[in-house]
Structure formats: structure tokens, C-alpha cells
């Protein structure tokens, strides 16, 4: 699984730390990095890039036109049945 994909490893703070931390520049920078990582992970999941990475890892193949065609074939059934909301 890629480091910023939709896994349990994505660095999002689940619970706030006890006590009110001071907003130092380092902490602010770290918060921005964390937020960006989450945003990228969200976009990668929405746009199926993470699903493709998982497919490559599961199938143990390198990314290629053929691998992507196989991935699309595999996901077509599920995607075709997924309704879009009104």
C-alpha cells in the first residue's frame, strides 16, 4: 500500500493530545503537511489511484498499460453498479 493511500497508516490525528498545545511555527507546518497528506489521500481514493496501487500490490505486477487494462476490467463490474446520487 502506498504511503499516502487510504490505509490505517495515513497520518491523521484521531484524538487530540491532552492539554492545549502552543501553536508554534513547527506545529503549524506539521499540521499543514498532515492536512495535505489527507487531502492527497482523499483525492487518490476518489479518483481510484489508491485502488490501482492496491491492485498492483495484490497482483504483484508493475504498472503498465496492460496492468491498467486488467485493473479496469476488474473494477468495471463494481463501478457500473455504483449509483450516482441525485
Amino acid at each position, binding site marked *: 500500500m502506498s504511503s499516502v493511500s487510504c490505509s490505517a497508516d495515513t497520518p*491523521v490525528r484521531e484524538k487530540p493530545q491532552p492539554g492545549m498545545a502552543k501553536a508554534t511555527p513547527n506545529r503549524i507546518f506539521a499540521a499543514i503537511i498532515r492536512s495535505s497528506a489527507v487531502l492527497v489521500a482523499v483525492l487518490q*481514493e476518489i479518483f481510484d489511484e489508491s485502488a490501482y496501487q492496491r491492485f498492483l500490490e495484490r497482483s504483484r505486477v508493475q504498472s503498465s498499460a496492460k496492468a491498467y*487494462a486488467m485493473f479496469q476490467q476488474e473494477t468495471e463490474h463494481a463501478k457500473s453498479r*455504483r449509483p450516482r446520487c441525485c
Partner: protein
Amino acid sequence: MLPTGFLSPMPKLVRVIFWIAVSLLGAFALATIALHRGEQINALWLVVAAVSTYAVGYRFYSSFISAKVLALDPLRATPAERLENGRDFVPTNKWVVFGHHFAAIAGPGPLVGPVLAAQFGYLPGTLWIIAGAVLGGCVQDFVILLFSVRRDGKSLTAMAKSEIGRVGGFVAYVAVLSIIVILLAVTALIVVNALKASPWGAFTIAMTMPIAVLMGLYLRRIRPGKVLETSLLGFVLVVAAIFGGQWVSQTPSWAAIFTLTAPTLAVLIILYGFAASALPVWLLLTPRDYLSTFVKLGTISLLAVGIVALRPSLNMPPLTRFADGNGPVFAGKIFPFAFITIACGAISGFHSLISSGTTPKLIRRETETRFVGYGGMMAESMVAIMAMIAACVLQPGVYFSVNSPAGIVGQAPEAAAATISSWGFPVTAAQMATLAHAVGEQTLFNRTGGAPAFAVGMAQIFSNTLGGQAVMALWYHFAIMFEALFILTIIDAGTRVGRFMLQDALGHIWKPLGRTSWYPSIFFTSALIVAAWGNFLWQGIKDPLGGINSLWPLFGICNQLLATVALCVATTIIVKMGRARYAWVTLGTLCWLVAVTFTASWHKILDPNPRIGFLAHARQLTAAGANPRLIFNDRLDAAVTAVLVVMVATILIESGLECARVISGSKSAATKESPFVLTKLAEEQA
């Protein structure tokens, strides 16, 4: 959006003061928008009222439901963990699931519904959006998501079948299929009304087809798997197409080619729907889907920034004279019609399909269903508030000029302007001509359906924030492109979903029809689905009252009846969980929706006013010797509404009997949950 645990490090006293302050601010903002009369108010009051109410609802109401009603268990393994296969079942970070869920539930509904309901003024719609979401829509999405998570990600129809009975499953199936057909027809009608006689818009949308094919080839052959990069490239090409559309509209020979009538556009969309359902998805549909999601998320964010940056005043009064039921956009009084017109921004049955579809298979921990289900619907509701603002920043005269059908206000601009001015909303033909010129259209009269009015409002907000009046035409066509693009995505995806549902059902009658890769079956079932929604679309474009007057209420009734089914399932499960004393959480909303949908259905079928009642309209047409096809359409609409109401009444009775059996003790209170398995995440955390 407030994540779980937000503010927990604060000392208790500070927390109490904070939430009292938020509650008071929300109450003050709600009082301001409800009691302010005579003067314009700033749109930010709507935003403050909504955000404060959502915050309080999330912090307290959803917390109560989590703890007391559903008893969320952080130690219970979810299907994403137990059945993880790296494909459908994947434990996913809650923010990622939230984004995924929101992208799936956000469609044209929360944009179009509030624009149409703005004919009553901004107040009824805004109050319904806020209250309906916090007490109804968010709760429905949350509980259905949790119940699906506890049943290995089962669909709503499967849960209805296992928890209520076979009739429940059948009714849910028919309701889902009906809503898909009506949804496709009404959204196609919105696109037709937005693109008719608009060479700029028609060209831009036509160009999205070759752009999507290019994206498909790029994604498959050149940069496999780089979807974000490809979508960005597609977005740049679409923006170029918008500029190209301007050139087309100003070049007479090209403008003539792309100036299409409503029937021509309808035929093209019907053909597109059939082709999209029957052809492989990778070349056209998948890239279009990505592109539409990309544009949708970007534009919604942009609109939020625009509203906050511009802080526009609302020109629409809080209540208009059309509260009496004689509105030109659609006929009918505030109760029940405002509540079925705005569905997706307040409560939408369709969301229950998403909450019991992909999302439950991604949830990592049970406790995260609150954030994804309740929180996702709050974000959707906020989009509806923004749409209401976009409609209400327009001068009321302009709003009614755009949204009123020719059958009500007259075909000639002068006659239409005079009629609308006589209602107390002054507007002139010259003013509308200037506005049409500013947005690059030949006329803005009689553009029913909500999308053009939303685009004009959005263009005003965008152009006042960035670029000024000089670029208003570009912003207008950007907004039209944005709406048409993702409506067409709904049409192609919806037609395929409907086709699969039909194949599943017909496969029980004759096995080969159920084979999803057998071309005769694909063509046959695609043709059936396209014929079903194409018939309603054709009815809409031939309707002298604009089509929206008939089809949007029909769509709203279908959607809310589906929500009724979802809440029936939820209430039955809560009772079976042995928590009947908390069943009011879903039962209250269920009763309200039954009152709304059954009253609306009664009016739509039997009301003596021909603008409201289908049968009264059919009688009027018969007396006038109108085309028998128009008369048949009215009777068909009445029949569809009646059948759906009878079916939902059946599921209500069955659900009520099941609950009564459990409460009286004649049946054991056993739900069909998957067995408890301790989550490994708890060990990891420890």
C-alpha cells in the same frame, strides 16, 4: 466539520461556554433570517445559521444517537477489517471515506431543488434544509450506514428483505428502479432546458465527449493509473472548450450548427444514454466520471469561497406571494411541496443506497460511521444552502423570468416581463436582454429547470469576486458546463445501474437475460430503461407548463418515498435491537415524510387544480381536444404515483406489524447482524 473529540482538551467550563455561544449564535442567526422583514439581509446569516445548527446537531444529537440508540462499539471489527480483500472491502482512513462518501452523495439535487423552492422566498427552503438535515437526512444516512456495516455491507434492499420481509425487499427494489427512471428523465430535462438555443453551451458539452475519449486513451496507453493528472489535463481542455464555445456562438455558420431545439437535444441525450449503457466503460464513461467529479468538487469549493468572499445580499424576500400555491415554477403550497422539492439538501432516500453501497465496505471502525454518515450529509446540506443563496442573490424579477414557463408568463419577452412585473417583481424585457447578452445567450426567458437560474446566480457571485462583469459570460458557461457535465454522468451511470437491476430481475424469468455480458440482453434491457426515462423526458419537453412542474414533484415524491422505506428499515431494526424507547429518532422523521409524501401524492393525483393534479390536467386537456398523448402522459404520472404510494403503504404496514410483534413479545427481538468479532485495531492501539 467537527471531528470526534474536537475540543475535548478544553476545560469543561470553557467547553460549556463555547457550546452555549455557538447555540446562541445559531439561534440569533435563525431568528434574523426568520423575523427580518422589509430589508435585504446578508447571505452570511444563512451560512452562520446553518453552520451553527450543524455544529450543535453533530456535537449533541449525533452523539446521543451514537451512545444511546446505536451503541457504537469501537471494539467490534467492521466488514472492511474482517473481509478485507484489497478490492471492495478496504479499511480506510475516516477522512478519506468522508471525501469518497461526499463525492458519491453530492449530485445536482441539492443545487436544483433549493433553486426551484426559492419561488416561495428564501425562508421556507432554508429552514427545511437546516432542520431536515440535522433531524432527518443526517440521521437516515448515519443509521443506514451503521446498520449496513453491522451486516457485512448489505444493500438497503437486502436489509429490507431480511429485517422486514420479502414484500419489503420487493418494494425497495421497485422504489429504487422508479426513482432511477424519474431521476434520469428530470435531470435530462434540466440539461435540455439549459442547452436549448444555446450554441455556446451545446458546443462545450459536445466537446466533453472527445475530451473524455482522449482522457481514456491517455490514461490507458500513456500514463496508466495517473487519474488525477489526466483529470487535470481534461479540465484544462474543458476550459479551452468554454472559450471555444464563445467563438462558436459568435461565428454565425458554427452557431447555426450548435443551435439545437429541445426535441433535437432530447433525442441526442436518449441516444447517448443508450450508447453509454451498452458500450464498454473505459473509453468514455470512466474518464467522464473522473472529470465530472474533479469539476464538481472544485466548483463547489469555489462557490463556498465566492460566497464568503463576496458576502452578497439576498434580493429575494423571505416569503413570496406564491406561498399560496400558485407559483409559476411549480404549483402547490409550501406544505407539502417545499418538502418534496428540496430532497437531497435535507433528506434524500437515494443517499441510503450510497450508505448501504460502497461506503460501509470502507469504514475502519464503527465509531467513524457518525463522522462519515452524519457529517457527510451536513456537508451536502451546506451545498444546498449555497444553492439557495445563488438563487436568492438574483433580483426576483430575473429569477421568475428565467424559471417561469412560457405557458404561464407568455412567449414574447415583453408579455413575460409585464406578467412578472404584475406579480410585484419588476423586470423589463430590455433588462433581461442585457443580462442575456452579458452571459452570452440569446434569451434567458423560459429557461426552466433551475440550472440556468443557478448558473446566472453563480456567475454573478464569481464575476463579482473575480474578473468583473467582463467575464460573466465565461462564468455562466462554466457553471452550465459544470451542471450539464455531471448530470450527463448521472444519466450514463444511472442507465447502466438500471440496466443491471433489470437484468438481475429478468434473469429470474429467463436465465440468458440475466447474463450481463450477453449483447442481446444488454441491448434489450438498455432499450427498456432508456425508453422508460426517455418517455418521461419527451413528456417534459412537450409539456406547455415546462415539464419541471410535473416531473420534479414526481421525482421528489419518489425520492422521499425511498427515504420512507429506508426509515422503515431503520425503525424496525432499532425496535428489534431492544431499543424501542429510542425509535422516535427515526420514527419522527418517518411520520413527517409519510405526511409529506402521501399528501403530495394525493394532491398530484386528485387535486382539482389542473396545474397541480395530473387527473384534473388530463380532464382539462380532454375538454380542450388536446393531443391524446399529452392526456395519456398525465394519466401515466398519476398511475406511477399511485402505485408507489400503495407499495410504500404496504411496507409501512408490514414494518409496523413486525415492530408490534417484537414489542408485544410474540416474536423474538433478533436482528440479522453479523456476529461480533473483536477488532485487531484495538490491540494495535493498545
